[in-house]
């Protein structure tokens, strides 16, 4: 076995029972070329300091649990490799713009509440029985929502969104992308319900098109596009109600 390489990992620690403000702590971790940042943290927890807290689950960029700031950039730590960060030190911090619960663990309740509020599931236009068979969609209808359905709720886009940091009530890129994923689905009839939330100030209109959300998304969802398409939809709703009597009432 070759001589083991070492890299310094600096972690922003916050233990509410111990510290009033977060502090940086350094660890020296032996690593191999195939080791991710997450594996580095797991080494720290298993062999150096068992008090370190962080979330993780699948280790293959699909569960969305292990998002954190790596050298200041929102990343899935399982998908970010130590070999690409040589010679170090690697600075690891809880996802930006979220309150820190402990170490690398952030508060997610407001995000989950927002996600629930937009009803992220298909609301059929009218009930459909099994004997009516499956829904059919053209490739173009599929393309309208397919990329947005890749969201894994990792919240990296929130850590990339200064508008969310400045206005924590902003529904934010990820949830708006998922709302759009259903609005844009030809099988869905729930757009009017979702637009009530999406058309508010805290909905699409808090977005100022920074666009970094789409850059950091590990699943190429392009939330900025979903949000901005719905500025168009929201504006259409607003102006068309003057033309259509149906649009003015619920």
């Amino acid at each position, binding site marked *: 076995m070759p001589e083991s390489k070492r890299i310094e990992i600096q972690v922003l620690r916050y233990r509410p*029972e111990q510290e009033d403000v977060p502090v940086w702590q350094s660890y020296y971790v032996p690593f191999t070329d195939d080791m991710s940042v997450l594996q580095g943290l797991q080494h720290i927890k298993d062999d150096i300091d068992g008090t370190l807290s962080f979330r993780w689950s699948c280790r293959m960029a699909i569960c969305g649990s292990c998002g954190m700031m790596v050298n200041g950039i929102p990343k899935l730590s399982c998908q970010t490799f130590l070999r690409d960060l040589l010679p170090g030190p690697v600075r690891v911090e809880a996802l930006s713009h979220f309150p820190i*619960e402990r170490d690398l663990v952030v508060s997610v309740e407001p995000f989950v509440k927002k996600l629930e509020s937009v009803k992220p599931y298909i609301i059929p236009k009218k009930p459909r029985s099994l004997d009516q068979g499956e829904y059919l969609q053209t490739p173009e209808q599929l*393309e309208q929502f397919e990329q947005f359905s890749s969201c894994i709720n990792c919240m990296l886009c929130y850590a990339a969104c*200064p508008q969310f940091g400045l206005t924590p009530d902003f529904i934010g890129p990820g949830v708006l992308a998922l709302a759009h994923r259903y609005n844009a689905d030809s099988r869905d009839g729930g757009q009017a319900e979702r637009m009530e939330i999406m058309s508010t100030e805290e909905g699409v209109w808090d977005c100022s098109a*920074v666009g970094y959300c789409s850059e950091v998304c590990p699943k190429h969802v392009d939330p900025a596009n979903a949000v901005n398409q719905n500025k168009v939809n929201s504006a259409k709703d607003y102006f068309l109600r003057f033309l259509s009597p149906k649009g003015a009432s619920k």
Partner: protein
Amino acid sequence: MNARAGVRRPYVRSMQGWWRRDPFFMAYMAREMTAFAVAIYAVVLAVGVMRLAQGEAAWNGWLAALRSPGSILLHLVLLVSFAVHAKSWFEIMPKTMPMMFVGGRRVEASTITRTGWIATLVVSVLMFALTWWWKK
């Protein structure tokens, strides 16, 4: 036992100086700032129209003011700002539009951006040629 153990005290980090944290945010702020350059140039042109309505002397005064070193410097700054404006806004444009389909295929974001840049270039060259020809 520590009296604070088990008590939740979520820590909220400050947003102060957020736009200096990432080159992407600085580019975003630069893009937004160029909107002021557009506003300033709109005022310069509006003043020109106003002076034109006030008669020949006023109009010639405005033209002379445009030739002053301060004005030339301002115009150079505005020109650079307009270039950044055109470049950065067309970069973000594909994200702000509904999906476009041509012949059943989605138009790539890079195609939309490049079309915007080419249109800007063509219109700019045409305007330049037109004023050049007019001056002669």
